[in-house]
């Protein structure tokens, strides 16, 4: 107990320096936790918005369509979706048929490419959550030539509720087709990809105009927990969907592979940034420990002369460094958690600072960014804060112990 007690006394002895060093660590860790919570929040919200508004938990498609899905080939649609939907519902999985095709929205000032999603107005709500995102006008009704536009797309096209809208496209047979629609509603959902370039219309209306004859390009599924999608899909492929050999089921991760790759890259970059914050704090601590040890060289010589072994002295200094690390880490984690809690609770609304419609940051998040809790990172930060302090103290202690006792005693 003597060595820890001595280390503790040394901490309180240089109170100002202890506080300054611990503050540097606390600042570094608090920043780390805050930033990580923010990134985690963006990631969690992004995933949630992807699944709720873009991909569903999984999607059933024909194998041919999946092979060329970026081209959106109507010719490879699911010819008879109802037995598939019935089988899926029998397995307790909500399923919604959709048809996806590309078009060109034509307005007086010009035209703009759009992604058209034809939805079954009733069944779509079992998988997706668009009704509550309608900010103007109303939700789609079956059989009508209506269009529901993303808010930013409506803004870009200069359209409002009640305005006519023409969309040019090609039918399943490849013939040019003009869809004369009326804007019945405008939605503003938390997924910017939807807001930016998507137009919704009723599935039955599209079926007739696009010569689909009951075929749909996809059946979207909703699972209780989207994170188990791969596991559920494996079960579906082996069971319920085994009777439909031309079909395949892909998870939201497969559908959002591009986004996930970009997200992983961004995360890597962010981690490098966080690492830099950590390194800067560690360098500060290292410098302080260096000064701490060098200004106590004479005392170190006295302790050695009185019979303290190198390992005892090393232990005292490392305990001291660990003590500073612990104080700083606990304070940093505390501050970081308070800041993160505020970010989880209220978030920050960036809409006042930037036009989100002009800014694509890749993440499927709205202007109000919320943080999320990341307990492993908090634990790692706490442990790493202490360990980093101990590690950076090793070198100056070793250097000081290399000095002869007589040199230490002469040190001024």
């Amino acid at each position: 107990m003597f060595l820890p007690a001595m280390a503790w006394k040394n901490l309180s002895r240089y109170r100002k320096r202890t506080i300054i060093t611990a503050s540097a660590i606390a600042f570094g860790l608090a920043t780390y936790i805050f930033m990580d919570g923010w990134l985690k929040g963006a990631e969690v919200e992004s995933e949630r918005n992807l699944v709720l508004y873009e991909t569903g938990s999984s999607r059933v498609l024909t194998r041919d369509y999946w092979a060329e899905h970026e081209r959106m080939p109507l010719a490879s649609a699911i010819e008879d979706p109802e037995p598939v939907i019935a089988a899926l519902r029998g397995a307790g999985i909500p399923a919604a048929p959709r048809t996806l095709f590309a078009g060109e929205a034509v307005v007086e000032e010009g035209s703009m490419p759009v992604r058209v999603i034809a939805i079954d107005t009733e069944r779509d709500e079992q998988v997706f959550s668009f009704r509550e995102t309608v900010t103007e006008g109303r939700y789609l009704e079956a059989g009508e030539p209506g269009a529901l536009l993303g808010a930013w797309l409506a803004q870009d096209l200069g359209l409002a509720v009640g305005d006519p809208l023409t969309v040019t496209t090609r039918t399943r047979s490849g013939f040019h087709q003009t869809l004369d629609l009326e804007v019945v509603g405008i939605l503003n959902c938390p997924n910017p990809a939807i807001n930016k370039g998507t137009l919704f219309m009723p599935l039955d209306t599209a079926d007739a105009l696009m010569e689909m004859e009951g075929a749909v390009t996809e059946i979207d599924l909703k699972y209780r927990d989207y994170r188990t999608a791969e596991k559920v899909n494996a079960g579906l492929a082996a069971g319920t969907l085994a009777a439909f050999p031309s079909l395949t089921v892909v998870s939201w991760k497969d559908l959002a592979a591009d986004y996930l790759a970009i997200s992983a890259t961004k995360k890597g970059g962010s981690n490098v940034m966080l690492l830099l914050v950590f390194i800067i704090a560690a360098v500060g601590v290292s410098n302080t420990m260096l000064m701490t040890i060098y200004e106590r060289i004479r005392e170190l010589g006295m302790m050695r002369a009185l019979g303290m072994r190198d390992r005892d002295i090393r232990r005292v200094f490392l305990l001291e460094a660990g003590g500073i690390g612990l104080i700083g880490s606990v304070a940093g984690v505390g501050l970081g958690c308070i800041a993160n809690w505020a970010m989880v609770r209220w978030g920050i609304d960036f809409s006042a600072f930037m036009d989100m419609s002009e800014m694509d940051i890749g993440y499927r998040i709205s202007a109000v960014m919320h943080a999320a809790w990341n307990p492993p990172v908090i634990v790692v930060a706490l442990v790493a804060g202490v360990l980093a302090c101990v590690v950076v103290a090793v070198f100056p202690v070793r250097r000081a112990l290399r000095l002869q006792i007589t040199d230490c005693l002469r040190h001024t």
Partner: protein
Amino acid sequence: MSGSENGRGTVSVENVVKTYATGESVVHALRGVSVQVAQGDFLSIAGPSGSGKTTLLNLVGCIDAPDSGEITIGGTRVSSMNRDALAMFRRRNLGFVFQTFNLIPVLTAAENVSFALSLLGIGDREIRERTRAILAEVGLAGMENRLPSRLSGGQQQRVAVARALVKEPSIVLADEPTANLDSDTGRAILELMRSMNERHRTTFVFSTHDQMVMDFARRLLRLHDGAIASDERR
């Protein structure tokens, strides 16, 4: 019981050589010095600056190693010990009094003294009793809880003497113990050390160029240019 009652306070220095390299030049601090110190000696090593007195004291104190020659303390050959063994030897057998006191500023007088005992793994109760007793013996009763900053130079050196003696070492080594004290205080410290020497038969070895310390010593060893110039017993 004093640790100096069974011959552990004897020192044998045999033909010790010590050189220091300073840049490109070599300083011959000790040129084959031999000296025998008996149990209970009150020995002062004197000489001008650069004569080798501090070097000899450091070698006897096991905080420096000779280039050649042998040093034996209480029958133990210390010149061939490794660092850890030397640390343990110093811990158990040697006490130090430094010119600049070298007290730990944030520890009280009692804590500075008990520091030496804590290293020996002695129980808290015994540490408290021995600390209180030695501080009373050096005239600091009632000042146990004062920090060094609230003690005069003489009082600080008394704490240093108490720290050196509390573990009942066989030898106390004092490097210029009066150099930072006024003459009255220096005399008081020397009287204290001599009374300790007489009471406990602890061997005291000083290095000094202070005439008063030389006058107090019962044996005066004069060094000149790294060699013994004279060895006078009083």
